[in-house]
């Protein structure tokens, strides 16, 4: 049979045979050239509306400011809790009291003991708690921590004991007394805990009575001539509650000096005027003692200029603050605030601030019971302390206030950025304008380039209503700028490690018009970037 096979099918056979031989060298990926990747990305970078208050929180500087209920902002030039403090243990320290008890056994007593138990006759001792504290009167005293230490040197052994009974003393509502025993020959020490013991001395102030008695058990010992000899020391280490009178005392802690760090003293460079600067001192008293505080020194010191000004003497009667005692019935602490402003200090607060101080030195003296006898009281938790602050309400004018800050700058593969268009839209709701410059620097802060060349970015103020010193509602200063960074400028900043931002602030009208800063005044920032990449990708 003759086989007829179409030609096209024969070629098929040949084709299949060539499949695996014809394409051996064809996956030549090593010949593929690097791909020049040039995408362009448009990215929103920043979209933020920053109120003055939010800015303070985000920069961690809110502790340097005070915002009241109406949103008025004050710069806390200096604020300190516990500018000074008086604690209960500073007020009354009772020194330890010591006494000796001695009893010699007579031959009569020996004869009694040899046939029956024998009651040792009681002996009364009296302690004066005002010892070492002249003028102090103790009516009631709760011992928080205290001990009675007894060192005995007896010459015999006996199963009997000594009784100790405090007059007008209770512990947990029960008359307080204790005993030690049996008698042992030689030296023996005992400690009696007095914690929680209350002395009610209203009828006989300051004086604590202690009666010592005892019992000797029927025994052949002691014999005539044997001795009971005990040395006692009463120590009141901490007072839990005191009622009485502490006398007239003066506390005068050392002078203190504090550094002013707010804004890194940016205000030192420019001119600044605050309409109503203030300093105030707030005293908290939960100790039941009336007091009088005297501000002896309030000095502003500028270490750069070497100038200083102490305004304490100019405060006049305002330098002396009377602090009432809280009531013994409700014990609510009294809070006394004294505010110093230009109006009550003959403008001395302004003079203080005009020193542009980097240090404020102050000294405070406290006299207790300045009017003489009264009922004093305190608990171990009571305290007397002062908070001191210097506040500058942001109401005034300023010019050429220069602020600087640096940030790390890390952009990997900057070389692969062909161009960058950075658009900044800034809507300023604050009554101040800013001339801003952004520098790119190396690690040693050598400037490599700036964002705007020799120009500065001027962010205009929100227009100010002169009658309110506030920006007109809904009016802003707007700045919309696009910065184009071509390849050559990007190359200039390739080695940049830091961004240095320098801003010069002026209040409205180039620092001539008074303005008010409110916590809700805001800065709206919208930054966008359009970046063109030019990167070589190798397969």
């Amino acid at each position, binding site marked *: 049979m003759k086989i007829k096979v179409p030609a096209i099918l024969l070629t098929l*056979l040949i084709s299949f045979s060539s499949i695996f031989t014809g394409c051996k060298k064809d996956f030549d990926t090593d010949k593929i*050239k690097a791909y020049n990747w040039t995408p362009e990305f448009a990215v929103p970078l920043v*979209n933020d509306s920053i109120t003055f208050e939010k800015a303070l929180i985000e920069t961690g500087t809110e502790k340097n400011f005070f915002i009241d209920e109406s949103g008025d902002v004050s710069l806390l030039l200096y604020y300190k809790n516990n500018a000074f403090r008086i604690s209960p243990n500073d007020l009354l320290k009772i020194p330890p009291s010591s006494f000796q008890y001695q009893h010699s056994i007579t031959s009569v007593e020996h004869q009694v003991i040899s046939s029956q138990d024998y009651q040792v006759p009681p002996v009364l001792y009296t302690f004066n708690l005002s010892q070492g504290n002249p003028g102090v009167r103790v009516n009631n005293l709760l011992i928080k921590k205290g001990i009675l230490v007894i060192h005995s040197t007896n010459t015999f052994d006996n199963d009997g004991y000594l009784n100790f009974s405090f007059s007008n003393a209770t512990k947990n509502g029960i008359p307080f007394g204790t005993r030690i025993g049996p008698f042992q020959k030689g030296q023996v020490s005992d400690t009696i805990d007095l914690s929680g013991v209350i002395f009610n001395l209203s009828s006989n102030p300051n004086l604590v009575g202690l009666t010592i008695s005892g019992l000797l058990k029927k025994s052949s010992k002691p014999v005539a001539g044997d001795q009971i000899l005990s040395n006692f020391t009463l120590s009141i280490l901490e007072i839990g509650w005191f009622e009485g009178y502490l006398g007239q005392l003066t506390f005068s802690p050392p002078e203190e000096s504090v550094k002013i760090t707010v804004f890194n003293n940016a205000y030192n460079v420019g001119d600044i005027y605050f309409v109503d600067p203030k300093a105030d001192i707030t005293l908290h008293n939960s100790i039941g003692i009336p007091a009088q505080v005297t501000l002896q020194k309030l000095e502003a010191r500028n270490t750069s200029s070497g100038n200083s000004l102490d305004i304490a003497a100019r405060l006049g009667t305002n330098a002396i603050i009377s602090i009432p005692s809280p009531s013994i019935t409700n014990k609510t602490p009294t809070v006394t605030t004294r505010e110093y402003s230009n109006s009550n200090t003959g403008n001395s607060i302004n003079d203080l601030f005009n020193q542009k101080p980097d240090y404020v030195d102050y000294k405070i003296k406290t006299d207790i019971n300045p009017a003489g006898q009264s009922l004093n009281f305190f608990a171990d938790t009571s305290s007397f302390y002062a908070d001191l602050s210097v506040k500058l309400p942001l109401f005034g004018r300023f010019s050429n206030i220069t602020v600087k800050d640096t*940030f790390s700058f890390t952009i990997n593969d900057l070389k692969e950025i062909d161009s960058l268009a950075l658009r900044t839209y800034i809507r300023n709701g604050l009554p101040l304008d800013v001339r801003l410059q952004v520098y790119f620097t190396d690690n040693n802060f050598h400037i490599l380039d700036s964002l705007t060349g020799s120009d500065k970015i001027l962010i205009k103020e929100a227009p100010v209503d002169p009658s309110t010193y506030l920006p007109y509602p809904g009016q802003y200063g707007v700045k919309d700028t696009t910065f184009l960074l071509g390849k050559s400028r990007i190359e200039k900043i390739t080695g940049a490690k830091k961004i240095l931002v320098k801003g010069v602030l002026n209040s409205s009208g180039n620092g001539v018009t008074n303005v008010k800063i409110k916590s809700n005044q805001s800065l709206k920032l919208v930054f966008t970037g359009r970046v063109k990449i030019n990167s070589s990708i190798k397969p």
Partner: protein
Amino acid sequence: MKNGNKLTGWIIIFFMFFALPLQLNAQHDLTLYNFSPVPQRIYENPAFIPEQKVYVGLPLLSGIRSSFANPFSYHRVLSRTEDDSLNFEADAMIKSFLKNPRIRLNETIDILSVGTQIAQGKFFLNFGVRQRFTAETYIPAELLDLVIYGNTAPQLFGKVVNISPSVNATLFDEYSVSFSGRAMENKLTFGVNVKYLSGRINVSSKKTKMELYTDSKDYKMFLRSDLEINSSGMDQIDKYFSQPVTNLVFPKNHGFGIDLGATYLINEKIRVNAAVLDLGFIKWKTNTLKWISHNPGSEVQYSGMNLHDFVKAFDDPGGFGKEVLDSVSNLVKIDSVYGGKYITYLPTRFNIGGVYTLDPHNCLSIVYDGISCAHHLSSAFGLSYTYTLKNFLGLTASYNIFNRQYWNFGGGINLKAGPIQLFIISDNVPGLIIWKSTNNASIYFGINISIYQKS
């Protein structure tokens, strides 16, 4: 005869007007479908009763089928320069994905195929064990635009685009029994193939929405995602072979499928045929992991950082760019849900064809093949001519349209020496030879022991 010609004409008209406008972009085994000497074509239509009395596919060599379809060809994306190096042509690649964003890969290994005539050839019983892998990846051109040109590309800037890719890939074992028979005095053949499916690995994208919009004025970015991807066996896939052997052989992801087919002899020259394949499902419950959008359908916006974070970003050791990228990518939050069960359906195929017998050795065939996968129908059309000489030589040549390519010339060879039968088939022979110029290729070859009726 006259009626048969009319029918063929109508079939051609059907393809011209209805099928061709559809996306023609799958792997369809068009040449095998009409190459009668190969008994494994029973898997393309269970009514195709093999000519062999008995055949046994050699284990693992019974049939190995591999095909892929790309949106682009090698030459389209790599152009040669004068210095004999190659340039990557991103534009061309994106244009290719714009036309056809799907990449397909199909592999089938016949582990065992055995078939025998019964009842003196009236019926045919076939057993088969096959391992099948199907994968379809959808990559939207917009995603490539974004990666290659950035979000300022005109196709993206100021427009809402879905950049979500999707992937549907399944590796499974198929254990099948088919029964075929003749009726109506051999005018009609019919067949049914019942399959137990044992799923091994699956990834299937159920929801694929990730809409991106970049405002062309202030560059604000808006993202709306609704993603849901199921998987089985993917979590810790590096430890896949560390599983107990029983789990490896039977991974407990059970499924069932069925193929149905029929042919009808209109007259002595013309036979028409049709089949529905892979009507079935697999229920996945082993080592499942679902990735799902945290807030499906909700729109998130990235309009920039706050000033504090912006300043901090410059201090990030990874660099400012990474911080920005992280800020944008963090907008899409995906939850991982372990455990659970889900069902995937096999890509169902539909074959409709016809054969015109010229003489005992020569015939012309036509076939339409459609694959329904993930709510998407991929259509293909094939026209073939087959020559057979008794049972020891078979040759076929075909013209095929698929994968948006209109110039696919397929072919196949079947040789038999004694009981040994070898065959090799492809829907696109030039694609195998000049593979740099094609975006698809397929090959199917195997060895059987085939025994024919002596008559």
